[in-house]
């Protein structure tokens, strides 16, 4: 009897404690929006927080609350929040993470919510990255091309032709240059391919590689054709035939290759444009580096990207206010601030004209010149892509790059095993 009374008391206490739980409803009728940002670099966090502050100062009726999220866990965290009906109103993410949320009905269709100014400022090719079915489920606002970061001194001394966005290397030329730069325990290039799939697929667009082919009935098939083999074969041959690329870096992330780059082991490293920030911070005094465009193929400098996006939760009771905040955040001058904070490129055409993005300092101009060539990543809207990537493509590419399997087996595994996986998502 005493025990039963104790349990009842405990439960009552627990429920009473529950009343201390969070409640964002405002007593004065003011709308409060939660903006979950994934900004993580010092300048980027500062830029986001300043913009939130500016919004709050000029919009007394709609308060925005900055909530820090993290790239590392955003998918799981959002999924749980959506399921529990507790998602933030404004969601920062990457376009390649949106498909499941968009198809799952968790994100609001922004077509009727966004002003014409913002719709027309961002090119259609960028909107394609966030278009799923008929709807638009995110505003793409920052993106970065993959570029070659090169040791400028080494390049100058070797006498090789230095490529520009107007006159880039072809893939064949790139392979020759890498071979010319290597020798004596030094390598022309270091490919950090710990995550080989998106890097390979995005760069393969330059050679006309598509890999994913959508049939008339809307179903997607994997077909590994000649154009899809250009980039993988270059990497494979550089590592296994020419010895111009280090095999040890195949298992590394981008940051892991930087000490070797600074130490003079590698002449070039293909990295995202934003890695310049780390290079500026970490490069030894006097280290001379420069940004080169990635090699061009049959389709020129085209490459795939998954831009950073801002979305609105379908469950948000204040979708219009949330869209208005996104519009404010992505005004050209603000988009530039965000881009500079993240060392990335803005998607907006007005923002891209800003002189700050055309300086030679830190080679901003080289990256900005590549913006027009960026397209939606090939796997962007393919349902089942994450599973295909993890179970089939990652091990297959890793084995191919390390020389464990040949091109035919790579093709067989990507197509046969891959299509079995995709078929389960398209029944």
């Amino acid at each position, binding site marked *: 009897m005493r025990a039963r009374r104790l349990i009842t008391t405990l439960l009552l206490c627990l*429920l009473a404690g529950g009343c201390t739980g969070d409640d964002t409803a405002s007593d004065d009728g003011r709308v409060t929006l939660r903006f979950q940002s994934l900004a993580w670099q010092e300048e980027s966090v500062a830029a986001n927080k300043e913009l939130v502050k500016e919004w709050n100062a000029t919009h007394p009726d709609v308060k925005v609350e900055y909530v820090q999220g993290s790239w590392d866990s955003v998918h799981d965290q959002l999924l*749980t929040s959506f399921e529990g009906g507790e998602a933030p109103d404004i969601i920062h993410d*990457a376009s390649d993470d949106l498909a499941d949320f968009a198809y799952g009905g968790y994100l609001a269709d922004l077509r009727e919510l966004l002003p014409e100014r913002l719709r027309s400022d961002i090119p259609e090719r960028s909107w394609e990255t966030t278009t799923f079915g008929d709807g638009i489920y995110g505003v793409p606002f920052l993106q970065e091309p993959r570029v070659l970061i090169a040791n400028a001194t080494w390049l100058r001394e070797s006498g090789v032709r230095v490529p520009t966005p107007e006159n880039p290397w072809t893939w064949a030329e790139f392979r020759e240059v890498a071979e010319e730069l290597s020798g004596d325990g030094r390598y022309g290039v270091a490919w950090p391919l710990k995550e080989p799939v998106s890097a390979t697929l995005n760069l393969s667009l330059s050679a006309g590689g598509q890999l994913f082919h959508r049939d008339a009935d809307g179903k997607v098939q994997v077909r590994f054709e000649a154009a899809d083999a250009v980039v993988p074969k270059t990497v494979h041959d550089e590592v296994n035939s020419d010895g111009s690329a280090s095999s040890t870096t195949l298992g590394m992330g981008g940051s892991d290759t930087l000490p070797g780059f600074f130490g003079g082991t590698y002449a070039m490293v293909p990295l995202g444009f934003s890695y310049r920030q*780390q290079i500026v911070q970490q*490069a030894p005094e006097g280290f001379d580096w420069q940004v080169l465009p990635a090699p061009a193929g049959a389709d020129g400098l085209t490459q795939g990207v998954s831009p950073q996006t801002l979305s609105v939760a379908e469950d948000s009771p204040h979708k219009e206010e949330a869209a208005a905040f996104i519009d404010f955040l992505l005004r050209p001058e603000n988009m530039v601030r965000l881009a500079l904070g993240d060392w990335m490129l803005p998607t907006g055409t007005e923002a891209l004209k800003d002189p700050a993005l055309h300086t030679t300092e830190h080679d901003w101009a080289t990256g900005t010149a590549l913006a027009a060539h960026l397209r939606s990543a090939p796997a962007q809207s393919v349902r089942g892509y994450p599973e295909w990537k993890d179970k089939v493509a990652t091990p297959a590419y890793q084995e191919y790059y390390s020389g464990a399997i040949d091109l035919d087996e790579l093709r067989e595994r990507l197509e046969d095993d891959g299509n079995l996986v995709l078929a389960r998502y398209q029944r």
Partner: protein
Amino acid sequence: MRTGRAARTGQYAALLAYLVFLAFPFLWLVSTAFKPARELGSLHPTWIPKDPTLDNFRQAFDEQPLLQAALNSLVAALGAAVVAVLIATPMAYVMARHRTTLSRMATGWVVVSQAFPFVLVIIPLFLVLKNLRLINSMPGLIMVYVVWALPFALWMLVGYVRAVPAELEEAAAVDGAGKLRTLVSVTAPLLAPGIVATALFAFITAWNEFFFALVLLKTPEKQTLPVVLTHFIGAEGVADLGPLAAAAFLATLPSLVVFAVIQKRITGGMLAGAVKS
């Protein structure tokens, strides 16, 4: 005799190697925390920073609310440890002293429950807590930590209770002590090291826990240290290494301090007072 000395030397060498192995990540973390950015990118890293700096700590504190997060972690971990021990101790006593089929099944269930992955329970748990209005609240998080730590805590304590000879309780009864007096004066002191060890386990489990805190706490003021530490990591695993190391170093300190303080209680006093003088 010579063989014995050689064996002992080998043992010490193995122990030393093991200690170095265990200490390496922590020492490297400390070293990294004091290195300037340029040294972090060196191809030939050194143990002792050539040009030690506190900039990483300054940046870590500037960028993230580390103190608030540490306080939140402390509240969650202490709360979980205290509540888990309060619940587990009487349960463990009953399970250890009254061995029935039910208690054996309960022990089996306790072990099996440890195999449940977090993702399996997180959504139902989220919904339950939401209905109780315990999302984004410390009581909610503590409740989850208690539930999560309880099976293992119970399992640990059952072992400790069994190690206390039942004859001592019987002897106390013969001397005229009642059940409560026996538990308080005889059993509890002998169980103290076990209770402390269990509390430490629950504390460290909660202190290091990331996923539940990530999902259940929404507002920045309530986030715990492991969640805040991930804010130094960017897309594709790129990390702001210096500030991350500085923050992670600070995050390990409370665990070390708590362990250092409590460690004596775990090792000392085992079965102290078991023999009447």
